[in-house]
């Protein structure tokens, strides 16, 4: 299961991009990230296979996915 980062970790992660976040905004960000991490748990269990084609883009396919 994915962990929820603590607020110091989140602040440091944004700082790597040169982005500053006010301390009083961190708890709300942590709640958002917690919801996201929970949602990503099932994606982490997807078996993509060993030889899937490369991720590409075909503008005539009707979707930018894959």
């Amino acid at each position, binding site marked *: 299961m994915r962990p929820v980062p603590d607020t110091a970790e989140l602040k440091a992660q944004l700082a790597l*991009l040169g982005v500053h976040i006010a301390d009083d905004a961190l708890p709300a*960000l942590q709640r958002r990230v917690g919801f996201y991490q929970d949602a990503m748990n099932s994606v982490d269990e997807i078996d993509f296979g060993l030889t899937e084609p490369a991720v590409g883009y075909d503008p005539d396919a009707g979707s930018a996915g894959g």
Partner: protein
Amino acid sequence: MTPMPGPRGDSVNEERVGLSLTEIARRIHSQEVSATHALEDVLEHIAHVDDTVNAFITVLRDQALQEAEAADHMLRAGHLLGPLHGVPVAVKDILTTAGIPTTAGSKILADWRPEQDATVVRKLRQAGAVIIGKTNLHEFAFGVTTENPHYGNTRNPWNPERVPGGSSGGSGAAVAMGMGYMAIGTDTGGSIRIPASLCGVTGIKPTYGRVSRNGCLPLSWSLDHIGPLARTAEDCARALQVIAGHDPHDPTSANRPVPDYLATLNQPIEGLTVAVPGEPFWEPIDPEVAEAVRQGIDVLAGLGARMVETDFPLADEIVAMQTAILFAEAAAYHHRWLRDCPDDYDPRVLAGLHQGAAIPAVDYVNAQRLRAILRDRMAEIFRRVDLLALPTTPVTAPEIGRAYETVQVGGGQLQLTRALTRNMSPFNLLGAPAMTVPCGFSSDELPIGLQIVGRPFEEATVLRAGHAYQQETDWHTWRPPADTTP
């Protein structure tokens, strides 16, 4: 409530501002009414009601009057520029307009006057449309309520204490209120369909790549779509016909022929297979919404569609996919402003961008890989069915200031803004065309929408089903009261 011909007002031609785009175009082109008079009606109506609704950031009164007079002059000389000749339309203020402020609903771009029209704006002008103004939106289209601290909240014409949805809330409210016969919106996670549904109008998100995004500020490159909001499916067909097509200035533009949408609009839907996807789109849901949508689906069945049920693949992973892709792409686009002027953002938009900046690159790539699997599995389903039918949103318009709360809905708890996007984002990930048509009202007189989804590049089938539905029902003719005092 009873169906009304148009918004009730004291000072405008109330019948005329309530007409469909199709009908006002016919009257203008036959010179029963001049483009100038049609425009003056709309401008007068905007002056009458938009102080409260706040659908527009910029109204182009003088420029539009000049364009309308030129349109009349050409008509008198026997020249018809195109199907929208002389028709007043609005454009979401996230598409560039040459020499005209394009704010994206932000403080950051408050003073930006682009040098060129977006491709969609250029096509509208080439078809003869008169651009009456730029509509309000959730800041940078990153939100679904159109609560905007920089330009004021847009209010829902049906109840000014409620949000109009978003991010194209100004476009939805403008069309609902008779402040334009069509308005352009953008849709990354429902931003055409949500306001169309919550405001009681018709809106279509076409296939990804069908409409050029050149000149549109991106929210998320791989999920953004542009499309029309209007009163009817037929109006949407006419507008989409104008703005669709390949554009070499947009590398994601599909180089596929655009069919004649009007040519097939009146074909019966008898024999089409319509699938109703299951629980993820119905639980939880407001029981009144569920009932209205089920009745709408029954209308499609009554028209001879063959109804089946279907599962929806990867339903448990949709939120994760959409969030990883949309938020990461948005944070990438906004990175410099996020670093240099974070205090210029609405705090809620800033919070979303911070979240996007914290998404690992591995998640983004895996979400795109999974999206390819979703597309392949849906292609299997679309080999057996022509259309999907489902609720547009599981709730009606939330109250302004309360859309971020978690409330009891039917048999479960829902955070309202997440509820609004729940039935939307699968079709942004898929790129499939998706339309909402009005299908009823709640007991507190708020509109409800039925969503119809088709195979990629088969907008014609979606429009045909919506049109057939609107020939059997009159929900699309209902208009909000003109008294918009909160």
